[in-house]
């Protein structure tokens, strides 16, 4: 087996596991922050995104393996994570940052 497919598999696996996890977790955090900012009770604002975040992780993880190129497999979760972190940064309800 040549090295190229192995390298691609490793890169896609990285996009599917840590990168997609970071994107899902930061999206859950950003949604929670936005909902709390909008006056939704904190437990609901945190609870619903937390319960739903696994489906986002799963979807992004599967996308990472099915994307046309490795670049896309990295770019989609990477960009989503960046946008979500920016939202948490701007509306720092919990004082995390």
């Amino acid at each position, binding site marked *: 087996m040549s090295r190229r497919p192995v390298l691609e*598999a490793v890169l896609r696996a990285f996009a*599917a*596991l840590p990168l997609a996890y970071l994107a*899902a*977790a*930061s999206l*859950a*955090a*950003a*949604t*929670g*922050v936005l909902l*709390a900012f909008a006056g939704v*009770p*904190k*437990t*609901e*604002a*945190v*609870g*619903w*995104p*937390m*319960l739903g*975040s*696994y489906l986002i*992780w*799963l979807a992004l*993880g*599967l996308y990472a*393996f099915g994307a046309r190129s490795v670049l896309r497999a990295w770019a989609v979760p990477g960009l989503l994570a960046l946008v979500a972190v920016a939202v*948490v940064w701007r509306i720092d*309800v*919990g*004082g*995390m940052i």
Partner: protein
Amino acid sequence: MHTWAGILLGALLFLIFFMGSLSVFDEEIDRWMMPDTRGEARADVGYDTVLANLLPAVEVRDEPVFLYPPSQRQPVYRANFHGPGDTHLRRFLDPATGELLPDQGTLGASEFFYPMHFGLHLDHFGFTQIGYWLVGIAGMAMLALLVSGVIIHRRIFRDFFTFRLERSRGRALLDLHNVAGVMLLPFLLVITFSGIVIFSHVYMPAGILAVYPDPDTFFHDAFPHPDREAAGESAQTASLDTMADRASREWGGGELMALGLFHPGDANGYVAMYKDTGDQVSYRYEQLTFDAASGELMHHQRLGPAMSTYQFIMGLHLAKFDDWPLMWLYFLMGLGGCLVIATGFLVWLDKRVRDAGRAGYRAAQATASAATVGLLLATAAMLAANRLLPADMAGRAAAEVWVFFGAWGASLLFGLWRPGLTNLRRQLQALALLSLSLPLLNAATTGDHLAATLWRGDWVVAGVDLCCLAATAMAWLGARRLPAPVSGPVARPATSEA
């Protein structure tokens, strides 16, 4: 992805599924492993007598003491508390007299098989979170395997009705893998997803950290209950039985699952009462909190929609139902999950049988057999040790654990030493013998032979014995039906899709 995720995490997934399946009947296996706690509760002296006998007899640190009342599955009182050095201790009490029963000298299923299901016992080495995370990653991989399994089987409807036992071994294995996977797909999706959601605060804490300056505040908000420090002044505890009656009325007739006494004997002590959830899917225990000194109701816990949903999902996974057919269904479908994983291993090995002489193949084969049949062997060995080790032996519980891991390690070594189907046949034969010995050992050491337990209708103990006999029959049949051993590289036509 389906193939490699399965191969890399299959062993861990099999362990999680098998231990989870055993955990459905953890209390029944506990009764089998702890003969003093068997039987039927004929009288109940109540919580006050039980507590009065418990507190002077054991060293309880300033931590909650949890009391579990007798039930059909556990006919004695159970007390869980923290002892010296933050140890987690458990003692049983006779409901007829309130007297402490002797230490059972075993972790039992509820403290060995069940924690292994979700934490792999890494907490003993200080790696609690790593254990949870490994199980969580395996769970996410399982979800990805299920979805990708559906995607790669475009003819999923036809696969459901296809089992070609007469075709090649590889084809039959693949059909079995597909049929079992498709039949169990809804269960596997629900049980895997709900299993991950239970540990959301561990796997997905980002939302909590982003919204709550102090993450602990989230848990007080999400599951509201009065929480107060000890006052340092002693006070008499009011009647727990009266509080339990009041709790039952407050729930509209619900029964008590457990009570927790916080700061026993302190003026600021309080009692938490948890409702039994056996008559519903949701694990919604509606905590009631009473002032320990006055016995007055302080708080009735009501959850918001998100946490109610969380408890519903939790209930789906924990299967704490008062319904035997449903519990058997969970147990059998859990074992069905094991079958899907094990046949996945076999399909992978069968497709690469040309490499049978290579070290990598042999290692994979030995790992696969140790992860599947070896785990069953280790479990049976632990149960056998439970009946063979002297009751008064020091460190008896730890010795049982050593037997479990020793047998498991031996299975791996044997697989490396005797590769191929010879290894599998020998291990299945050993499993059949060991499983057969369990009802005999139970009869010899306790007098509770199968005829006696069946005669008196003790299905808890009889059920475990009968399961051991069923395991014997299946392991023996499996060993007999295995084809002739394959040794060395073999040229055979490759099977199609995986």
